[in-house]
């Protein structure tokens, strides 16, 4: 309803200004209030409508409150409803007036007509005036027991409303317990559904302070409760089905057969016309089968057709919501969708937010068999009238080129783009050709021939210009005009607004100079002079740096600035796999549409109704771990244009590493990490400002760079040998509860051996092995390369428990462990046991 605040808004000419009309209305209502003339109800209805229409457009009509209440004493239900609507809107800002209505609402709560009882109860609970809550408890109590299911549904929501006005009143009246009872016994499914919604909200918010509420909240996920709801699922309305399915998705079955029972029961929900029901069902299927790789893949196959049907039926808005989810699944398992690529072709009349998703999906599913067709299709879009989409399409072609082995045909296409003579096409294509050359230097001959024909005057976009300049510098040996083009660009230094371009220009002219000194010397001198005079600090510093290098020794300078380059094998992914997993865990929520985990766009209390397993994840994957640790063979990127920013990074990193990285005989990750760390250690020690607190800080630097050097375990102060109980038992809900409550007592990261990685192809083996060491797995999941395990163990002859979260990434060969313990003093000892168990498996 239009909030009174809006009344300050100046009314538009078509709308009445308010004041005069309102007092007029007041007068008329007063006249009608006592009248019993025939037809008076109709006139009242008309007046009421007028009041409500003023309210909607934002005129303050709170001054007629008294008259409204007086008029609706009559039994006309339409009048009553309008009055309730009005009262609900103004009661909160006029508590005194609200008090006036309590009487008649309470009386109506005892009316013969269940409709009136329900409506009155709803209005009573919607008054939202804190000092009136005492009047709610009685009517709510009897409403919950009402013989009419309508009144009961209203009453259950009323309890939740009461909880939000005054939690203590609600709890003291023992309403949650009543709702719990009703949830299992009421014959009306909407009552059951409302009980579930209300209890989820109440117990979730109580759980932080009350042990009991926290237990009750977990009780909602008990087998009894979940099965009870599942067995009735077809009686529920489609919306209530979504609610139940959302709950089931959090349920952790204790045995495998349950998983199949649940999936068989829900199989036909996948054919529902309501996309929300289908997505909620899919979430259940995906979550249940996380640890069963084969079945999980079958689930993907099974849900493909229903998802595609939903995408193409319904309104564009609905299909977008489904498409976002399909997008997530395609990005997770592109190979499953590679034969469906035609479904991801863009239609000319689709909005660009749909096209963007489809382009990404096309890029992801491209493989050896369909690349030709996909690239042909993408090339059609490059001439699209929608320029942003045309750009995206060209980028997509480039991305496919970078991920394919056979890039022959694609390179030709890209080169054709350069010949299209459309500014933005040329610009995008230049950037791509540059990236392509960084990965496939063998294509340089073909590309350079075409690039050489492009006049630098036709390239205006900074990114494209930078790319062109980079190529001029890099391939100046083969590009006949390179020194002269660079020279003319340097002559226009003043007009070049982009610092990025000027930086590239400095580097390119340096590289060109090493290759063709006589032709470039003049240009280099001009560039360095212009650079030194540049107002931009980075440009100035780089010019100065080059100048000093050259002064020191030209061959050293060449070694630093233009060493032989290794092809880049993998460009970094924009999103860490942890973030992707997190979004996947939040399937069927806004996280998928925004492509961000919920902590990035919403605060804690609004993440969604049930946050059990998420909280476990929350602790393990905090924001801080989102991307600060970068594996060595990848290059960190935070810019939209990954490749360009990485190229800058490489270059800026080059000098500080003394060139040792790039001249290393083979680009082997371990060699590099060793070399780099050594360099850093040397740097740290030789640098007088840092050496003060060596060697401890140097270790920290290692960690900072995530080089994965095994950290020396601190010698524990001779703890008594720890023995574990081989028959330890813990149920999942207790685990979750403990995991939430206990602080992290130890957090470690280890590198894992290649043999260990191989062993993980069958995670079951690891679980059995750990069990042999009295460390039990309670939950595991993930897909290569990311595995996640939750273990627990108990101290022999004591009930002291240890909990472990272990995340293993096989591609970066890292294992992260977080240990929580009842008795924190024992966590070191436990960690040692845990590690020795892992190393006996060959992991460490």
């Amino acid at each position: 309803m239009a909030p009174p605040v809006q009344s300050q808004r100046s009314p538009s000419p078509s709308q009445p200004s308010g004041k005069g009309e309102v007092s007029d209305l007041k007068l008329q209502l007063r006249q009608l209030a006592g009248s019993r003339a025939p037809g008076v109800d109709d006139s009242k209805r008309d007046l009421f409508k007028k009041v409500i229409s003023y309210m909607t457009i934002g005129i303050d009509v709170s001054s007629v409150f008294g008259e409204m209440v007086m008029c609706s004493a009559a039994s006309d239900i339409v009048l009553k409803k309008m009055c309730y609507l009005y009262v609900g809107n103004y009661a909160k800002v006029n508590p005194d007036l609200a008090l006036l209505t309590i009487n008649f609402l309470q009386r109506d709560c005892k009316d013969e007509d269940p409709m009136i009882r329900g409506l009155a109860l709803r209005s009573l609970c919607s008054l939202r005036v804190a000092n009136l809550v005492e009047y709610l408890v009685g009517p709510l109590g009897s409403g919950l027991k009402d013989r009419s299911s309508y009144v009961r549904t209203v009453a259950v929501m009323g309890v939740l409303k009461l909880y939000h006005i005054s939690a203590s009143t609600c709890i003291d009246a023992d309403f949650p317990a009543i709702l719990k009872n009703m949830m299992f016994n009421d014959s009306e499914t909407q009552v059951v559904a409302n009980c579930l919604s209300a209890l989820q909200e109440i117990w979730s918010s109580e759980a932080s302070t009350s042990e009991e509420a926290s237990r009750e909240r977990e009780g909602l996920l008990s087998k009894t409760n979940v099965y009870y709801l599942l067995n009735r699922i077809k009686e529920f309305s489609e919306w209530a089905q979504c609610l139940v399915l959302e709950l089931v998705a959090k349920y952790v079955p204790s045995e495998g057969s349950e998983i199949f029972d649940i999936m068989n029961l829900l199989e036909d929900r996948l054919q529902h016309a309501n996309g929300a029901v289908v997505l909620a069902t899919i979430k259940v299927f995906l979550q249940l089968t996380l640890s069963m790789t084969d079945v999980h893949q079958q689930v993907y196959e099974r849900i493909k057709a229903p998802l595609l049907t939903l995408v193409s039926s319904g309104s564009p808005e609905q299909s977008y919501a489904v498409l976002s989810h399909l997008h997530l699944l395609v990005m997770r398992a592109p190979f499953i969708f590679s034969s469906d690529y035609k479904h991801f072709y863009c239609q000319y009349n689709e909005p660009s937010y749909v096209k963007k998703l489809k382009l990404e999906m096309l890029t992801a599913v491209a493989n050896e068999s369909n690349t030709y067709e996909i690239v042909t299709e993408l090339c059609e879009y490059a001439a699209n009238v929608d320029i942003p989409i045309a750009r995206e399409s060209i980028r997509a072609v480039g991305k496919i080129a970078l991920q394919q082995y056979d890039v022959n045909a694609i390179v030709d296409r890209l080169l054709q783009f350069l010949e299209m003579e459309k500014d933005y096409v040329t610009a995008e294509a230049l950037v791509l050709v540059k990236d392509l050359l960084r990965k496939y230097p063998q294509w340089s001959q073909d590309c350079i021939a075409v690039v050489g024909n492009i006049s630098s005057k036709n390239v205006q976009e900074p990114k494209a210009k930078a790319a062109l300049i980079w190529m001029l510098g890099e391939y100046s040996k083969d590009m006949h005009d390179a020194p002269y083009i660079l020279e003319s660009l340097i002559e226009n230094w003043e007009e070049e607004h982009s610092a990025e371009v000027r930086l590239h220009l400095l580097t390119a002219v340096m590289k060109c100079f090493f290759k063709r000194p006589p032709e470039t010397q003049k240009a280099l001198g001009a560039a360095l002079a212009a650079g030194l005079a540049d107002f931009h600090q980075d440009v100035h510093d780089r010019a100065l740096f080059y100048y000093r290098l050259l002064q020191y020794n030209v061959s050293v300078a060449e070694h630093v600035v233009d060493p032989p380059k290794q092809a880049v094998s993998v460009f970094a992914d924009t999103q860490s796999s942890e973030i992707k997993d997190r979004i996947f865990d939040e399937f069927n929520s806004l996280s998928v549409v925004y492509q961000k985990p919920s902590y990035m766009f919403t605060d804690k209390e609004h993440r969604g109704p049930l946050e059990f397993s998420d909280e476990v994840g929350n602790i393990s994957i905090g924001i801080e771990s989102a991307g600060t640790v970068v594996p060595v063979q990848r290059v960190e990127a935070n810019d939209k244009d990954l490749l360009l920013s990485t190229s800058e990074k490489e270059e800026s990193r080059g000098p500080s590493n003394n060139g040792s990285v790039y001249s290393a005989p083979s680009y082997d990750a371990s060699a590099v990490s060793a070399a780099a760390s050594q360099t850093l250690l040397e740097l740290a020690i030789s640098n007088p400002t840092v050496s003060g607190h060596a060697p401890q800080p140097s270790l920290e630097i290692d960690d900072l760079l995530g080089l994965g050097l095994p950290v020396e375990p601190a010698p524990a102060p001779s703890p008594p040998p720890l023995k574990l109980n081989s028959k330890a038992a813990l149920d999942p809900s207790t685990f979750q509860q403990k995991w939430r409550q206990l602080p992290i007592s130890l957090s470690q990261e280890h590198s894992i051996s290649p043999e260990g990685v191989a062993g993980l192809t069958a995670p079951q083996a690891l679980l059995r092995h750990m069990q042999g060491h009295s460390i039990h797995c309670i939950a595991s999941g993930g897909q290569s390369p990311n595995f996640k395990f939750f273990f627990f163990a108990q101290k022999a002859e004591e009930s002291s428990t240890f909990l472990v979260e272990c995340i293993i990434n096989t591609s970066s060969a890292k294992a992260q462990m977080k240990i929580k313990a009842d008795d924190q003093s024992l966590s070191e000892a436990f960690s040692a046991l845990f590690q020795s168990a892992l190393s006996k498996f060959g992991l460490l």
Partner: protein
Amino acid sequence: MISQFFVLSQRGDNIVFRDCEHRGEVQKGTAEIFFRKVMFWKEDGEGDAPPVFNVDGVNYFHVKVAGLLFVATTRVNVSPSLVLELLQRIARVIKDYLGVLNEDSLRKNFVLVYELLDEVIDFGYVQTTSTELLKSYVFNEPIMVDAARLPSLGPGGIFMQRSKRMPGTAVTKSVVANEPGGRKREEIFVDIIEKISVTFSSSGYILTSEIDGTIQMKSYLTGNPEIRLALNDDLSIGSGGRSIYDYGSSSGSGAVILDDCNFHESVHLDNFDIDRTLSLVPPDGEFPVMNYRMTQEFRPPFRINALIEEAGPLKAEVILKVRAEFPSSTTANAIIVQMPLPTYTTRASFELEPGAVGNTTDFKEANKRLEWGLKKVVGGSEHTLRAKLTFSQESHGNIMKESGPVSMTFTIPMYNCSRLQVKYLQIAKKSKTDNPYRWVRYVTQSNSYVARL
């Protein structure tokens, strides 16, 4: 959990505004924030605003129905599908009640709409969206907008409408209001609506084709009789051996093979596997009985031939040919052929065939687009348009790349490409004397119908 629900007109006026929670979670003024964001999205060069976006922690969901914006807000990380589906459903319920959904009818009936909303959403939680159930809670009578100006109720009514994606039935009768005669007419409408997408390559091959169909029902039957709807006997579902049902099917020639389909929750599929009949007790109001999707090859209703050729240094000629490949007993309506031209086109002069009637031609200067409209096209006929273009600069021999693709929109009543049929519509009715009207109607509409150059 929804915080607010509102309906805005195209100009951004609040027509309906409901605060569902009073929890103070979402601040006031959201309607203005929302409308400004949607308006400026396009100007920021990012195209249309997506149906879901977040401003300062508040999530905005919207769907466009009949030129109105149906909006919901929340701070909670809810299921976007659920909220968008709900918004669409609210629009449908309102339409069921008002007969016609537009700004005028909504303004006249906003009290009724509030009454409906109160029962649909309580404290942000969905209670019901069934028109059937809502009837017992809702007491305001709808005020009808001038029905005289609206298309007739007959089976032809549907073809007057040209909504882009999902044409509603033109049944503009409220499910609750009584006819002027006082007595409701017993009738039921079943519409088979197919949206087709075809992409032709430059050489005329079909690159992709898809039919997205809906069997939509709107029932005005009293007493909730059971209905049986029989589809083609040879209908099979699941293509390429990936059949989800095991029929041991022999998909011989002529069989209709759907890739996949889904059903309204009221539909019973007990006999579907045996004799392809759907049985259901139709709830009041309009609803999709079944949605289906088909990529099996079909004969596209139109062939498009487009040619652009240079005709001198600053000139080119375009020849567009459209051939209707459906029976001559069928007529397509409201055909529009569009073709983007090179950006340096300054002028276009058109030449139609002699004797062409009901044709319009236009060169849209602003977006450099050629537009050719044909009121009617009879099956089997062929139509040609010639256009002479004048350029402001030389074309570098790239005109093929700088123009096209040709796209087409049309509606073909009483025709469907999939050959999916309703064989019969049986109404279980106690009295033999009262025979309700049954309307079974087919319509094919273009979704994305494109020919590349």
